[in-house]
């Protein structure tokens, strides 16, 4: 078990990130809330606890890497990076604006901390394979984490990457699937069936771990378990809720790619503020 203080700290970071996600999308008047809110807990756990990173040393060759393959969840990545100190949280208000370092989808050239340019689905796992191969070649100890959407695994390239990762025994590669069961045209099982998603990855030679993607205890334990396996890549299937944390967005495909209006923004912030207040109350118990 991970200690409760750590869990509380991460939950607090995640709710702050969620507030930034809602605010930046509201200000940008466009973007993807649903998949950002479902993925943000696993990303928070990486940047605030699990990964060996230093926001002040972006080019450390030994750093762990995170690649957001589902690039449309950029607001989740941007808010976590800002909160972690890669750049000012003020930048978040410029999401999708002209001359902003925060493009609609991540670009490695513009944003400190962004490792790979994504947005066209299906590339990120391959990119991660490349980083992992390099680490293996140079006997580096870093790990590579790749976050994919569940719908994203419709892309054929994902399976090319899956095969190459196990072929090269990339124990330093950990992929996550944000399994929220929703993609633009509907339920993933109706659009293009993915189940059994576990069997698919296992048959490709991966270690597969299935967890609750909003439970930090399970998330951190899964990352630790992934680190222990040295001769094969690990797939963590994060069972998540699209739009998690904002009542009317949860499991609502209408909020895949639509920003909240003013009323929706206010409701969302109210809900998240309440969660934050509760968590901060909890936090003082330890201090």
């Amino acid at each position, binding site marked *: 078990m991970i200690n409760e203080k750590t869990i509380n700290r991460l939950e607090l970071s995640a709710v702050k990130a969620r507030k930034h996600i809602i605010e930046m999308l509201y200000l940008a008047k466009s973007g993807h809330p649903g998949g950002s809110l479902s993925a943000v807990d696993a990303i928070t756990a990486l940047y605030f606890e699990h990964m060996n990173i230093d926001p002040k040393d972006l080019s450390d060759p030994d750093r762990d890497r995170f690649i957001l393959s589902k690039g449309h969840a950029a607001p989740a990545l941007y808010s976590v990076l800002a909160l972690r100190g890669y750049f000012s949280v003020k930048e978040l208000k410029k999401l999708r604006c002209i001359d902003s370092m925060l493009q609609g989808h991540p670009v*490695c*050239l513009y944003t400190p901390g962004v490792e790979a340019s994504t947005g066209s689905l299906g*590339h990120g796992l*391959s990119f991660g*394979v*490349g980083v*992992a191969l390099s680490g293996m070649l140079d006997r580096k100890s870093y790990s590579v984490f790749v976050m994919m959407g569940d719908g994203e695994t419709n892309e054929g390239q994902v399976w090319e990457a899956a*095969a190459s990762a196990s072929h090269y025994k990339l124990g330093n590669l950990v992929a996550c699937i944000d399994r929220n069961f929703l993609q633009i045209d509907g339920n993933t099982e109706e659009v293009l069936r993915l189940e059994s998603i576990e069997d698919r990855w296992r048959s490709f030679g991966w270690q597969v771990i299935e967890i609750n993607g909003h439970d930090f205890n399970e998330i951190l334990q899964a990352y630790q378990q992934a680190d222990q396996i040295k001769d094969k890549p690990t797939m963590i299937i994060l069972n998540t809720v699209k739009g998690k944390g904002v009542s009317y967005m949860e499991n609502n495909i209408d909020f895949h790619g639509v920003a909240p209006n003013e009323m929706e923004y206010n409701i969302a912030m109210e809900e998240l503020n309440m969660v934050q207040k509760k968590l901060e109350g909890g936090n003082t118990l330890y201090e």
Partner: protein
Amino acid sequence: MSKKILRNPRNAYGETLVKLGEKHDNLVVLDADLSKSTKTIMFAKKYPDRFFEMGIAEANMISVAAGLASTGKIPFASTFAVFATGRVYDQIRIDAAYSKANIKIFATHGGISVGKDGASHQMIEDIALMRVLPNMTVLAPSDYTQTGKIVENMATIKGPMYARIGRADAPIIYTKDYIQHLKIGQGMIVEEGTDATIIACGTMVDAAIDAHQILKKKNISTRIIDMHTIKPLDEKLILKSAKDTGNLVTVEEHSIIGGLGGAVAECLAEQYSKKPYTFSRMGIHDRFCESGEPKDLMEKYQLNAKHIAAKIERQLSS
């Protein structure tokens, strides 16, 4: 004409990779189940740890190369031109061009002289596809010597690059000493002339030189430019040649749309208005070709010295 010495540019690629592998320990090579044809197998044998066989999975190969480049490696990814561009356009667009990644895509089997495999394997759109991508450098070396020099340049100049060569043996044009003058982005004047300029790239440079000889006997003096770099294009040399000779022809084993001919046309149309000039493009005229012996194909599609010379004559008399 003196007897020509034939050497395969693909061997120059393989041999140069081996040489560079010694100098740059961060140089890595990827191939998609064609290492025997692309000659990356030479590198694979010498440096097995730094060679990554990706199988018949080109999209993955390009994005993996991007991941490798992000850690400071210099990845050379190779396969046939048809699979190295069209099949993986999206991967090159985002992971290489948009990200300004230091990825080197080296394609063999470009053009129609691939021959009997037919149009599915005859890549005549690759230069156009790569040229339209921001940040990409696009190269088409012409002989064994130049191929080696260009591969050296690719390894040392940062940024995403695409190079294509043909399948067949090609006559040696350059000596090792002469090729030292090569600079990416600067066309090479192979023959001087005053009546017309033939701008060629890749496999067509040798044919252009032969056309120069044919025309010389008819008292027509042609300047031959080896435009090994299609992007960034040596516009200065094109404009100078328009001014000097007044008549220009481009020749490429590629569609006349979007490749060398397209690039030169864009340059002339926008930037040259000093005096009247003639211009035409030789290449594949917006069609797929077919199976056949390379030399029969080059005759049928009018991509040899005889046809180039005839084109110049017609253009000068019109």
